[in-house]
């Protein structure tokens, strides 16, 4: 039975990381790149209007970092709960 509750805790920890990552995912693309694009375009990043930059560059960079972050966090959580592969 203990193994079962351990699994449930592990799954909850996973969902928490996942949720955090998806919030960032939504923010950089849908919010910064689309919904708030006109507002952010008032600010410039060099010659890039900021909203435009998020839509064509920033969101993609963030996605890459996000997946590596997820892999790194999950590996740590696997170890913590003793479910990592050998």
């Amino acid at each position, binding site marked *: 039975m203990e*193994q079962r509750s351990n*699994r449930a805790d*592990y*799954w909850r920890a*996973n969902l928490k990381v*996942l949720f955090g*990552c*998806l919030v960032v*995912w939504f923010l950089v*693309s*849908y919010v910064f*790149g*689309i*919904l708030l*694009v*006109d507002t952010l*375009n008032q600010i410039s*990043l*060099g*010659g*890039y*209007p900021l*909203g*435009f*930059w998020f*839509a*064509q*560059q920033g*969101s*993609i*960079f963030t*996605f*890459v970092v*996000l*997946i*590596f972050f*997820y*892999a790194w966090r*999950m*590996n740590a959580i*696997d170890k913590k709960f*003793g*479910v*990592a*592969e050998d």
Partner: protein
Amino acid sequence: MELQTLIYLVVGATFLLYFILAIVARAGTTSEFYVAGKGINPVANGMATAADWMSAASFISMAGLIAFNGYSASAYLMGWTGGYVLLAMLLAPYLRKFGKFTVPEFIGDRFYSNTARVIAVIALLVISLTYVIGQMKGVGVAFSRFLETSVEVGLFAGMGIVFVYAVLGGMKGITYTQIAQYVIMIFAYTVPAIFISLQLTGHFLPQTGTGAELADGSNQYLLQKLDMVLVDLGFAEYTGTPDLMNTFLLTLALMIGTAGLPHVLVRFFTVPRVRDARKSAGWTLLFIAILYTTAPAVGAMAMWNTLKTVQDTDQIGSPEGNLLYAERPEWMKSWETTGLLSWEDKNGDGRIQYYNDKNEEFAAMAEEEYGWEGSELTVDRDIMVLANPEIANLPNWVIALIAAGGIAAALSTAAGLLLAISSAISHDLLKGVIKPDISEKGELMAGRIAMTVAIIIAGYLGLNPPGFAAQVVALAFGLAASSLFPALMMGIFSKRMNKQGAIAGMLAGLTITLVYIFWYKGWFFIPGTNMLPDNADNWLFGINPTSFGAIGAAINFIVAIIVAKMTTPPPHEIQELVEDVRVPRAS
């Protein structure tokens, strides 16, 4: 060296490389044929997946799409890469843990139903066949343009190459070739972009060059200047943001669709461990991002170069402001012969006018004040990448490289799709449903035969493309979004999801998406059979059929959840299977 000889040498050398890899990496078992023996290093798999996933469209057409649509094309950039985030976090690690061979196999096992498996196979076949037509056509076009052969010859050569390494090597052969193809493709894409960025802005990185000042002494930013000149010529601002609702929905539909693409998902079955699947996804997106963050630069800079070539941007409207046709640069001449660029002297002044004559107010003003009688230059958007090296006066070997890169992009995706098709037939239909007692040797043979047949069908469709090829892409993404992604996700994240719910959800999502697309595009894309004209006034709530996959996916989720609530929960051993898929270590 003569350009044509050089192109033959470079393309020939890449083909030789693919042949060698095919012979070295022959597949001897079904595991090697379907999933490369699950022994691929995660970084190597990342590279192969990137090549698998970036198609002829990514390589050849995307930058042109951005050049002509500016901000609005962001939906493709964010949609295709952001969908990858969903795939990496919501599906890939768990499917790897499940540890079998195909995507329909997971759906069949998880929903303890051959019906569900067959529906998944049908969705997979439609999605993959649709995609593969475009790739085969891409191979044919790249050949005919650069090697000056007919499209047919190019297509047969492409079919021959894929046949050798995909049928012999299966997933193992495809993986090694895709790694080589990635390297060729990324090199071909970034080298011209770097040179053009240096010429225009003095920045080595195209990503920062796009946001930099022009090096022509005007002290103006590239994007700012581009906005200004486009508006002066009657176009919309490059960074302008029209129709945000459809940009939002299209981004969502492309993301969900991307996450449900079976030929990409199956690549994560090839790494040894769950941990490797997670890491490999990161590497994949990094490799993809190199091209995807360069593409906007290629788009903006190519647009600027094109405008500047034909129009003196300080003298818009004055007769001397436009380029004399007789003085046009070499690259325009060479692309005119392909028909992808053409000029018609509407006002008979011997000069080239390029502006937005669809903008009625501007067109009337231009006719009155400038004496312009219609835009005279027609530019196919694919030129933006293909002609890049010539526009920037780069040496011939770079042009040869672009040819090899375009062919590599098309071949790598075609091979991945063909594998998905053949394994759905030999493993899911034959071994899974029709003849479960088939021997491994028999299954391997069946896989090879299915692959051969798939190559022939793909080649035939590439030669005789249905007239609706462009629209079918919307169909492929819509179907992937509305059928496979929700079923896979609920299979992992909901223990309560049962067979009835999953089947009802997939059927509902598929049907509604199909009907909505056909409603505006014509039943089975037959012209004239559409129920309403395909424009924003008639769309339901203004939703473009191209973006409808997002709604189809939502319908799939809702129907599945309601039906599952009303029917019996899945059996105990299925709930155990879900528990097991969620945890990396085998129990």
